[in-house]
């Protein structure tokens, strides 16, 4: 986020990486409470979705930063909406695939 800064830039990325841990442990906690029964491939799907989502937002704002205002908003609206719907779908599937406890 601070490409010209020799100190702030690496720091930023390190901190960003660190909070991902928080993101996923939090998600894990939440998943446990809802008894979703998460496993490796479910986490991969969620992780992939999370990555796509962040990349879409970053990409849309990169366009805005590049003075392509129209394009930025359209990408956000179009791809972003598709991802929101996709996220809802994934959530629904995860709930459906809940393992039944005896």
């Amino acid at each position, binding site marked *: 986020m601070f490409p010209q800064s*020799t100190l702030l830039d*690496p720091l930023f990325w390190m901190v960003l*990486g660190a909070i991902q*841990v928080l993101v996923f442990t939090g998600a894990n906690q939440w998943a446990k409470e809802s008894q979703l029964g998460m496993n490796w491939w479910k986490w991969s799907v969620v992780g992939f979705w999370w990555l796509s989502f962040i990349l879409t937002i970053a*990409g849309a704002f*990169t*366009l*805005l*930063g*590049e*003075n*392509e*205002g*129209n*394009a*930025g*908003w*359209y*990408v956000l609206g*179009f791809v972003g909406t598709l991802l929101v719907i996709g996220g809802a779908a994934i959530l629904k599937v995860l709930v459906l695939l809940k393992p039944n406890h005896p």
Partner: protein
Amino acid sequence: MKDDAQIGDEATNSSRRNFLKLGGIAAATATVGAGAGAGFVLGRDPDANIGWGRTEAGKDMYFNREAFEVDFPPTMEVVGQIERPEWGDYLFNRAFSLVKSIKGGWVPSEDWTQIPDLRVREYYAKYPKRWEEMLLSFSEKVKHDNNIEKHRDRFALAWAYSGAYSKGLHADFPPEPTEHPDVADFKWVQREPKEFKSPKHASKLIKQMAFKFGMSMVGITKLDSNFVFKNMMRGMPEWGDEIPKHWKNIIVFGVPMNWDPMYAAVGYSTSYDAYYRAKMASGLMAAYLGELGYAARPQFPGNSYEVIMPPLAMLAGLGESTRNGILMTPEVGPNIRLAAVITNLDLEHDKPIDLNMKHFCESCKICADACPSGSISKADKPDDVVRGVRKYAFNQDGCWRFWNQGPTPSGLGCRVCIAVCPYTRKNNWIHALVKQAEPRDPTGVTRNALLAMQHNFFYYPDAESFHPEWSGGNFASYHQPPEWMRSEEYLKVEKTWEYDGNWEGF
């Protein structure tokens, strides 16, 4: 029961703890590795070289061409015997000859058979429809000259930027040849030529020097005689169609024009910033070769050529040909201004590349739609054959006519097609991703998705809007000018205009 529950709890607790422990260790290891790797890379990052950054390190040319090398450039579709271009094929030769005739008292009319210079007449015998554009360019230039000063307030800073480089460009380095090439090209040779270990070694060094001299891209190829003008040799009053024997290889290089001004074509853009750098580099390269004992003849913008640059650049693997007929590179799209040095040094040649740009141009047509003079063909596939090569029809004279209308101070240059081309993109991560992915996708899905987004999500002003006010437009540009070119930010002017073009979107 209580015991069972306790044991159960402990079991789950311990497995969770184990998981966290192992996970933690893995994460920590990864982080250390990442730290080491990132640190090392940052140590070598040419972006840290203040004043001599990534360009000089050759890092602008990041695209790995090896994967795409082919034997013959796909966009140079040879359909007959390739003919060498004539003096009259070169628009500026014709234009300046006509200006000379007009100054000498000749009055041009719609009848091209009355043109005094036979060579110019021959061209318009072949393309009679283009004469009306050339004719129009003179009256439009007069209109331009009568109107342009009124808009100085708006364009003052942009004109200053362009004018600076223009002065540099028209300086006397490298000097124009004044003698026979057998003498002129050896002017800087003072000692015996130093032998290289092999042509491969020579090419490797020469390319590095191109980067050191400030160029972003470089390619080397054999000087193909098909692309040498006939009857044209600087420094010689007359010339036939011989090609000097020491003209063996050509080193082609170039830089992009500065991005933000370029995006604000027409009024705020200039070719001179890139022209100046390319010209200087050609002089430096020629001098460098001369010092090593080799003949060197620089070819540089605005008008100092004996060869046509784009096809030679294609043969040198720099990029491909496009709808509007100029060179398009994977790194910077068509935003590249070329110069070259012809030499007798033995060099290893680069191979042409195939990036499937052909298919992109077929469906894109954004430059054709935006061209303010309608000079670019809108046909799906190349629809013209020029001197033995199939390409898209391009009306040189129409393009030139609009240059004379455009709100640059001298009425030279337009560059809208370059600004709107989807390949003309800065090197940030989204574009870098796309530029690497699209040529490698054999299915065409990436290309179609990109084109769909390009056509639907991006705003392009109408072709007419790019015209100046006195010719039916509103000085529109693809991007609005950068802050440092807006005179209202720095000069005591009254802002009487509105900008029409993409901006931040907030």
